[in-house]
């Protein structure tokens, strides 16, 4: 359970940024390893690419695109917060980053299915 002093939008935005960053850090080595199969073992790579037709994998890809998008837009929000003139609409900016990420990953999902 989220402790009372943490239950506000900007803390949740912070946690989302951390979790998405950690998840992407775990994903990227696997991603590069799969890409390396193009040079080392093409048949195995084809096997992996066939997996992407699976509905569960498509859903997982949606999650992945969401994590990537929310980390990018969340990161841009933080850069804007720290380097552009201050605006008081920080909660709106955090909500916009999540909203755009849902739009991007949702579009990806609808194109995939």
């Amino acid at each position, binding site marked *: 359970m989220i402790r*009372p002093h943490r239950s506000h939008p*900007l*803390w949740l935005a*912070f946690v989302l940024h951390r979790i998405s960053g950690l998840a992407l850090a775990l994903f990227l080595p696997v991603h590069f390893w799969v890409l390396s199969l193009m040079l080392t073992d093409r048949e195995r790579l084809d096997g992996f690419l066939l997996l992407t037709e699976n509905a569960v994998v498509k859903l997982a890809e949606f999650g992945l695109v969401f994590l990537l998008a929310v980390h990018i837009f969340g990161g841009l929000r933080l850069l804007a917060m720290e380097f552009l003139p201050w605006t008081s609409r920080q909660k709106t900016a955090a909500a916009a980053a999540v909203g755009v990420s849902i739009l991007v990953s949702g579009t990806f999902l609808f194109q995939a299915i």
Partner: protein
Amino acid sequence: MTETDKNIDVSVWRGGPSGGSFQRFEVPRQDSQTVLDVVAWIQQNDDPTLSYRFACRVGMCGSCAMMVNGEPRWTCRTHVDKVLKNDRLEIAPLRNLPVIKDLAADMDPFFDKWRKAGGVFHPTKSRNDPVEEISPLEEERQNANAGIECINCGVCFAACDVVAGNPDYLGPAALNRAWTLLNDTRDCGSQSILAAVSQGGGCHNCHSMGNCAHFCPNELSPMTSIAGLKRATALSILRSGS
């Protein structure tokens, strides 16, 4: 205040630096009752050994901050109505600070960090010089004005998870003070302030969670000040080239 027939089930943290536990009290509910009124009632009517800190009772002095139902609050201006959950209150000493006894936290680390962040005024004039005219319309003065109403209550320090995780972190209040001084045209210590706030544990440790701005009882935004310091230190490095 008018007493009602309802009671509040209050859990108060009792103990010292080496540890402690919550003790339960039944306190009569009253109209317009503040959390500090509840603590005072317990000390005056039930257990005179209960230790806590307060002074002005009107939100000026910053002495009475405590954790109320898990959130840091100035207790003298926090109405019981607003924080009561199922007729229960849990009151504990401020988080992230050592405990002296019961609800009285040791504020020394908090104020030590104020000094460490370069929060002492560096004057440019002596008392023999005429008073400098400062326009309230200047951008720098407006930046300073936005942060100077800090009452040093320690609420932001207790709310901050970076303070909890990094003992060296200077904390929102100290960095907010440094930002107001940096924007004060009468202060000549800007380089020493920038050096102090960019050391290990300085402004760049802030993760912009915003707990400080969310809980500040005076509705200040230390997060804004810290973002300003990050910008100022980055610009300073770009300008100096090192």
